[in-house]
């Protein structure tokens, strides 16, 4: 692979509890993996309070780490730090047999189309001789044009249909809308969580499968993914890629802070 960039990343998530909690169990999907367009080197996970970590791979192929902090604590902080060597403009070969692409071909909880999306697809879903890639690229651009980026009007429970009805949302919503449309067009597509150069939060975009390859498309930024993108996980929609899942005993309320720094070496 031709290295385009060498990016240093630091993904830091901290939780604060108003009252100490205990028996805190967690599963974290925040560790990037190497593939055809990114090599991850020197990746370290640091936890505060420290605890033994175990690793698993879920059925989507995402790596996750999990553990438990038994004793009472009022703060929990994870830091994932490393270097990614990324290539721009390269698609990842799809090694999954066609049958198993099925979960990415049909509507999921967040991407089920209602009247608004169906009507929109009616207007934009005719292909003028375009292949899957060109068609998806056009949708990618169309969504960017027709949506307004606005924070605070949607939340993690908002579906593609809800966000589209209001024409406003954030990257999660843009990605869900893109997925809903691609799947209506029978193009296998998946939700991606990752980091991009400079930004302070995690980012979401999509990958579409065409000609046995996965192509990254980012409707929020009206572009194809390039060397500034570091991918962390993928799934049918937001739900499959939740970064932090946790349960604990305690009555306190939880606050979360995330900071991501990605810079070129």
């Amino acid at each position, binding site marked *: 692979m031709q290295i385009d960039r060498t990016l240093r990343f630091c993904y830091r998530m901290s939780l604060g509890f108003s009252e100490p909690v205990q028996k805190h*169990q967690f599963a974290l999907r925040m560790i990037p993996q190497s593939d055809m367009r990114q090599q991850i080197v020197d990746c370290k996970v640091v936890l505060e309070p420290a605890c033994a970590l175990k690793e698993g791979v*879920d059925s989507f192929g995402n790596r996750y780490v999990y553990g438990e902090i038994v004793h009472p604590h009022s703060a929990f902080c994870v830091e994932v730090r490393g270097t990614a060597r990324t290539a721009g403009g390269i698609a990842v070969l799809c090694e999954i047999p066609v049958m198993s692409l099925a*979960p990415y071909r*049909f509507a999921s909880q967040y991407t089920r189309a209602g009247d608004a999306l169906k009507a929109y697809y009616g207007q934009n879903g005719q292909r003028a001789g375009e292949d899957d890639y060109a068609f998806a690229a056009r949708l990618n651009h169309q969504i960017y044009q027709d949506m307004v980026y606005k924070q605070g009007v949607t939340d993690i429970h908002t579906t593609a249909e809800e966000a589209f009805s209001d024409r406003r949302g954030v990257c999660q919503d843009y990605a869900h809308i893109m997925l809903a449309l691609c799947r209506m067009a029978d193009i296998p597509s998946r939700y991606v969580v990752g980091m991009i150069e400079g930004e302070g939060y995690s980012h979401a975009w999509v990958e579409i499968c065409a000609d046995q390859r996965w192509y990254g498309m980012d409707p929020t930024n009206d572009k194809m993914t390039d060397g500034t993108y570091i991918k962390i996980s993928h799934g049918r929609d937001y739900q499959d890629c939740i970064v932090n899942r946790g349960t604990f005993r305690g009555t306190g309320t939880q606050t979360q802070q995330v900071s991501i720094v990605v810079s070129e070496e």
Partner: protein
Amino acid sequence: MKDKVIPEDFIFASSGYMPECEGVSPVRGVYSHISGIDLVKGKDGEWYILEDNLRVPSGASYPMIARDLCRRSSPKTFRDNLLEDNRNYAQLLRKTMDYVNVEGHTVILTPGRYNAAYFEHSYLAEKTGAHLVNGNELLVENDMLYYVDYKGKKERVGAVYRRISDEYLDPMHFNPESVIGIPHVFDVYRKGKLALLNAIGNGIADDKEIYYFVPKMVKYYLGEEPVLSNAPTYLPFYETDMAYVLAHFDNLVLKDVAEAGGYGVVFGSSMTKAQKADFIALLKREPRRFIAQEVIDFQDLEIQDNGIVVERKADLRAFVLMADEPYVWKSGLTRFSRNPDSFIVNSSQGGGFKDTWVLSR
């Protein structure tokens, strides 16, 4: 699916489909340890299958209780008639659980005492000698599931008869907001170190749309005609079926595939003209949302209503347990509707139940 008997999207777009289970095989290959098959007897004398329940079918405890009470209150009936004894359900269930148990205790997992089926959970635990537990009494450590006793000693658990649905089982993999599940239990299950009864992901088979395909599956896999018939069912998804549904609307019952427990069921004949027009518009807009069935004129069953014998609609849930081989419990849950004009027998809708006798030969 490969041979196009069932369209792919009926599986993958089903709300019961769980991609997390791709590549996971349950212990000893058993998926549906306890199945509840709902049957009705038509006025034509034929038995029809109304529904297959392969997730966590409930109700087996009621016939156990009913039999106990009937034998006490009417000993003569049981002296004079040759009836199959149904008081072996607990042993059958125990055998089913033991067959898949991976070296450990057997527990019944309940969402708690305020669940509508709590009586059944605790009764089955008592009768099978299993421990009744809440999610917070179990914990996962080093890819094993443990039950912690009051001295803090950990006892390994090898089988969980779980009476909570898939999405609440493990907040680390499914619904992250579940407080009744066991964090990481799916990791243990996936590695084959724990049996869950029934397996995760059976919701696909429970789907009202898949029901339509069950006779086709029987023919495909066995090359035989099914012994028991389905109620004639139509999927408006198929054009020919849609045409039939529109032409025979008044003779059909329409069921919303997303609903359960007797909800989302409407009869074509009971709608006003305006309601019918609205419903047909909805059906055309969302043909995938509904199935249509012929209304089976089931045989009425005599029941006692405040001491008076009256006739009501009834159905029978047969229980099939799967250990080394399938076994049909020689009894079942007979449910009846409370109101004379109702077809709905679900207890959540006011239905009642009675003892079910299978005559010995």
